[in-house]
């Protein structure tokens, strides 16, 4: 039984997650690098998977004891490039090190082209019960421009295989607003995703990150994503999801009741998590450590018995309050205003945001009524001074 019982946008759930503990494990291996990706990833380094898993296990063993985990999230990169034994050993280690809470969510990311019965079944045996597929689109042309290698049919098959092997919760990731994608194509992609009856849907606007191949191509004259087209796509999807009975619970996330993503709920609630692997970020007791981003450096250090931590960020109390708002306001459930929220509501910028219908106050909670304009609110929060009222 999952810990995320109830509607995913419930305020109680949103707030409760602040006290939960999670673990994040990063698996950086990918078949090739997608042009828009700026995660800590490596391509063509599959020979290192074995060493990497050992290093992960060592890192877990070095981590001080902690409380039982409500969520384990194995993300990437492409975790599905590893074999179930490897992925299982990591979960096993986490469980024996920290313990798993009753109904803990154990989740991994997978690419459709890797997915098959044997893998799915093995992962189920190893304790995984939630899977998130990087489907991105059902339009072959869009998949191609995103540099993805799977076919729409592979994506559909992957979902049904997961279903048949008993995955309790299935997510589909889609990307919208790729230059060249039409509204018709996007509508079709969403329709086809919804037809697979996923428990959870993540819809991300294609974002041009600095230093990526996509960003270089755009500098060289390739078309950039159009924010207005992305807004159209978002609104289209929002309506389709609503009709399909999916509940919007964060800027980019929708889920059926009882299927809110526990790990994500924890991060948005400013909850705590330990993190392992390259580029992984943890959060405990107000400290946000981050791991080395380069694979070889990571392997060398961990194999040498050293910490993989590259640095850490510690915020002062006001900084944490600002962070709580920045994260919490991404949720449809919003936040309890608190010190920072009160200051925002009292500020001139806060007033303008309310007038413009972007920011609202309902049932004692502060909410972003137009999630697509969330960063306007975010900047207003950052502009607040600690003493400001």
């Amino acid at each position, binding site marked *: 039984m999952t810990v995320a019982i109830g509607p995913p946008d419930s305020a109680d759930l949103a707030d409760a997650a602040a006290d939960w503990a999670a673990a994040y494990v990063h698996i950086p291996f990918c078949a090739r690098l997608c042009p828009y990706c700026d995660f800590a990833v490596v391509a063509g380094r599959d020979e290192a998977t074995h060493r990497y898993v050992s290093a992960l296990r060592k890192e877990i063993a070095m981590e001080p004891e902690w409380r039982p985990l409500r969520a384990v999230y194995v*993300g990437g990169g492409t975790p599905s490039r590893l074999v179930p034994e490897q992925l299982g050993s990591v979960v096993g280690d986490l469980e024996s090190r920290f313990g798993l809470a009753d109904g803990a969510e154990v989740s991994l990311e997978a690419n459709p082209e890797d997915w098959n019965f044997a893998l799915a079944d093995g992962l189920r045996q190893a304790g995984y019960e939630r899977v998130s597929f990087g489907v991105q689109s059902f339009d072959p042309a869009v998949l191609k421009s995103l540099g993805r290698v799977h076919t729409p049919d592979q994506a559909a098959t992957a979902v049904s295989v997961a279903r048949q092997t008993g995955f309790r919760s299935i997510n589909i990731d889609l990307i919208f607003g790729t230059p060249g994608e039409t509204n018709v194509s996007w509508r079709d992609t969403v329709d086809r995703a919804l037809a697979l009856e996923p428990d959870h849907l993540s819809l991300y606007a294609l974002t041009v990150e600095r230093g990526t191949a996509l960003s270089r191509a755009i500098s060289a004259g390739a078309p950039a994503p159009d924010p207005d087209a992305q807004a159209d796509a978002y609104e289209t999807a929002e309506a389709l999801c609503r009709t399909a009975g999916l509940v919007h619970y964060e*800027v980019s996330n929708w889920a059926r009741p009882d299927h809110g993503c526990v790990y994500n709920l924890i991060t948005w609630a400013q909850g705590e*998590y330990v993190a392992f692997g390259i*580029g992984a*970020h943890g959060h405990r007791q107000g400290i*946000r450590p981050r791991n080395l981003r380069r694979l070889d450096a990571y392997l060398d250090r961990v194999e040498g018995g050293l910490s993989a931590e590259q640095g850490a960020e510690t915020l002062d109390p006001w900084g944490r309050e600002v962070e709580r708002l920045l994260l919490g306001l*991404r949720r449809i459930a919003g936040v309890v205003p608190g010190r920072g929220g009160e200051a925002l509501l009292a500020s001139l910028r806060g007033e303008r945001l309310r007038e413009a219908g972007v920011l609202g106050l309902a049932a004692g909670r502060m909410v972003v009524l137009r999630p697509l304009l969330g*960063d*306007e609110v975010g900047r207003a929060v950052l*502009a607040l001074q600690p003493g400001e009222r």
Partner: protein
Amino acid sequence: MNIRNFSIIAHIDHGKSTLADRLLERTGAISAREMREQVLDTMDLERERGITIKAQAVRLVCRAADGQDYVLNLIDTPGHVDFSYEVSRSLAACEGAVLVVDAAQGVQAQTLANAFLAIEAGLEIIPVVNKIDLPAAEPERAAAELASVLGIDPAEVVFVSAKTGGGIDELLERIVRDVPTPLQRPDQPLRALVFDSYYDAYRGVVCYVRVVDGSLNDGDTVLFTATSEKHQATEVGVLTPRAVRVPSLGAGEVGYLITGVKEIDRIRVGDTVSHAGRTVEPLPGYQDPKPMVYSGLFPADGEDFERLREALEKLRLNDSALVYEPETSRALGFGFRCGFLGLLHMEIIRERLEREYDLDLVATAPSVAYRATLTNGFVQEIRSPQDLPGADQIDHMEEPFLKAMIIAPSEYVGTIIELVQTRRGVMEHMQYLSPERVELIYHLPLAEVVFDFFDNLKSRTRGYASLDYEPLDYRVSDLVRVDILLNSQAVDAFSTVIHRDKAYQYGKRMVERLRKLIPRQLFDVPIQAAIGSRVISRETVKATRKDVIAKCYGGDVSRKRKLLERQKEGKKRMKMVGQVEVPQEAFILALQADGDE
């Protein structure tokens, strides 16, 4: 004492300052070690731009062929039309003028303008053709043009190369021979003309004087006739070019006078200095230079207002042509409405304020001064669009006109006439200076000339046309104020007074520019250009629809915060105009002159 006082005058860049270098060098005023190109151009901006901005006086001593020593007081003048008042002032302190013409370019507009000034001032003119070393030089042709302008025999023209030094000795001889000895009446009561002044942080105001009658001695108690201020001459001296103290300046001599006065406004350039207690007839003074263009200068950071005030005060100490008065703009806050001699002058002042005083400035659209005759009979000067009363109170308006002189190769006459027509010009006169070159005299509205006329003229004539102008009169004109409204609120910084025929063009251009410069906001922002309540152009900046980071990058939450933090810093440079956030640069970019007409 044998004295010769003369100015070097010419069209811009014809080599005045370089010629002065050679004269300084040849007379040993400056050692080879201290010598550098255009040594009299001492200001940073003069050196960077390679032009003279401020006239410079220097005293040389030379032994002529007759074996006698002569004191030469030379004044190097600026060539740019913005600073022609410096030329007039300098000429008043001299008996002669060395009129220089570039051998490759021949007579140009400022050659003529400056020649007329010298003739009007009754000066002896020594015609010089310079740059004869240039491969493109046509010394004979230049000499012929010069001779015809001055009505002299081409044989009288001196040929020099200020670069190589060729012909300099001959020029010195001609100066000694032709520039009249000043009338020296040492027994008369003192009369000295203040022909320039500058401010020195240590010594206070330093006056450049030309002693006309009597003598000015160290320690004298002097009276500034116009201001009736009495001061002691704490120092008198000559510039060699280094300041050298002397006990006395005699009749006919040029030098400097220091009285310990610290406030430049207490000394008036053009004033007559006499001995206290003696009543003298003041010398003909100068008219204060009249600003041609006005522009509002505002500190980008409102906190810098006081610093801007101090900086303007200091600059004014050495630049009496700069005028300013406080101005308030709803969009830009507190600043100053400043008057300038032209766009170059404006640019120089802005640059000096920004560089020497480390100020970040926003300037409003430059504008000329109009006149409004009100229905109640009052005449009001309109230096800023804000000054303009409501249309119902105005009987009629007038705008300043110029007399403009254009000299160009005759093949370009057609394109020039075309250009001038679009600028509402009226041709007064056209004359062939030679079969190849034409002089055109036009009456033109100042507002059509000061901004980008010259750039257009140059590009139409591949740089071969030259332009000079002088204020003429005010003429009745159909002027309107165009307001630019953001979200229905007028932004005073963008308003302009303009001829009705040009209003639509201005409005459309501003509105289009602003649509590109103003970022999308939470709501649609209409941008309108309007005359009164009549909208003549409009655009809309559509509301932002999407402004959110899609993803929270796994557990890396600080990354999102940093991204927003950076964006927020960008927003700091925004000014609020009503509910609309306008980037600082938008004010600068929207008002920038454009070459795309």
